[in-house]
């Protein structure tokens, strides 16, 4: 093995790690937003809205992650196709025809990966957020209502800041799961750590060393995340520590 090749395969793997991290971080952001939407919908006073959301979350949690990723990768072009061809929905009294011209049917696999991973993340994180909502004492909400704050303001200014403290350990664990799930997007042709490793192995013919390298990269990212999360958790509990000292 020439030194040149080793160097270039190392830089290729570093670049692929960037793709993996980019995927994981964007899925985290989108997933957190979706999780919040799910959690709020599940607490909705319209019962059927809450029930449908709960059902959706349960279905996603019961499906293998690889199935969700591949189904979305295959399903999105099919939906676009259907919209471009035009179809008619029969709703009780009226028929609604949906037809829209779409020029570009190629959805990048990275986008599909982000959609799938954020859905998976959101379905687990929404449960954590729901628990965290319940952990906030109802007195906080009542006090805010008495002060005449609007519903949205109560959510953003009163509940959310307190939410993170309760939710952080759960969300952190799910981030570690998300990180490992990103390996699945190599199956939908995203050039992440796994895919890059595969193409390096096709040159070197050394599968064990290659995948060992990939595994170490994942392990490194996981360990750094764990260290960072521990710091973050300590910071989020700062006020409670202060309170216990004061007593």
């Amino acid at each position, binding site marked *: 093995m020439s030194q040149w090749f080793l160097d270039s395969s190392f830089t290729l793997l570093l670049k692929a790690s960037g793709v993996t991290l980019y995927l994981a971080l964007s899925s985290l952001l989108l997933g957190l937003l979706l999780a919040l939407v799910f959690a709020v919908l599940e607490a909705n006073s319209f019962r059927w809205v809450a029930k449908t959301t709960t059902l959706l979350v349960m*279905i996603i949690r*019961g*499906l*293998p*992650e*690889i*199935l969700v990723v*591949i*189904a979305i990768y*295959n*399903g999105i072009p*099919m939906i676009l196709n259907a919209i471009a061809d035009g179809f008619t929905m029969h709703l009780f009294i009226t028929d609604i025809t949906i037809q829209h011209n779409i020029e570009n049917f190629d959805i990048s696999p990275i986008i599909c990966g982000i959609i799938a991973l954020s859905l998976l993340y959101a379905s687990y994180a929404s449960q954590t957020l729901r628990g965290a909502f319940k952990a906030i004492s109802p007195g906080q909400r009542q006090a805010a209502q008495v002060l005449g704050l609007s519903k949205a303001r109560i959510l953003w200014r009163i509940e959310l800041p307190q939410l993170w403290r309760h939710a952080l350990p759960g969300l952190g664990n799910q981030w570690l799961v998300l990180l*490992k*799930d*990103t*390996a*699945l997007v*190599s*199956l939908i042709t995203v050039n992440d750590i*796994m895919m890059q490793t595969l193409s390096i192995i096709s040159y070197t*013919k*050394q*599968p*064990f*060393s290659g*995948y*060992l390298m*990939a*595994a170490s990269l*994942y*392990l490194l990212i*996981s*360990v750094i995340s764990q260290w960072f999360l521990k710091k973050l958790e300590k910071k989020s509990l700062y006020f409670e520590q202060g309170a216990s000292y004061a007593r």
Partner: protein
Amino acid sequence: MLDKLLNYTSILIKGLPTTISLSVAAIIAACLLSIVLTILLNSQHKLLIASIKFYILIFTGTPLLVQIIIIYYGPTQFPAIRENWPLVWSLISHPWMCAFIALTLNSAAYTTQIFYGALKAIPQGQWQACAVLGMNKSQTLKIIMPYAFKRAISSYSNEIIFVVKGTALVSTITLMDLMGYNQFLNGRYYEFSIFMITGGIYLLINGLLSAMMRSVEKKALAFETP
């Protein structure tokens, strides 16, 4: 239309034996292995504890997909194994065996975390009570472990479902499980209904499993709820 769906279902069902045999075998083996590891984690042997912790770190810190692939494709790099240990070679060149080993080692790492955590959560008073009665370590563990395991059932049932979902990854090492037949059909007919049927079968399995585990938990914890 219905004919077509029935046809898809009848083909997908052929993958069920692989999915179920792998799940059951891996769940049982992982459970036994993690009980042993939990006992060993309670020993005084520092090197042993450190190596178990290292094993847990590695298998919980890397994706299951990498573990499955490295166990199946990795050994081909070392032709010496084929020459010197033909028996080992025939074992690890069989995809079912590799998937079984990977799933077991992966699940055992997570399950050990669950069991050990449950053991640590047992109040100190219980340990002290055993010590006062003059019990040694193994006698104490015999009393406390069943109690801890009963408390761990709810997190353990999540882990069982993760194993079933994890078996879907074995289609990447040429095994024809449910997901494998799903890919086969999708490649041939390219229809979304195939994904829906596959998903439905997985949901059915996981739904039945979690209902079963809930009733087991209820029975096991019956002594706690008046």
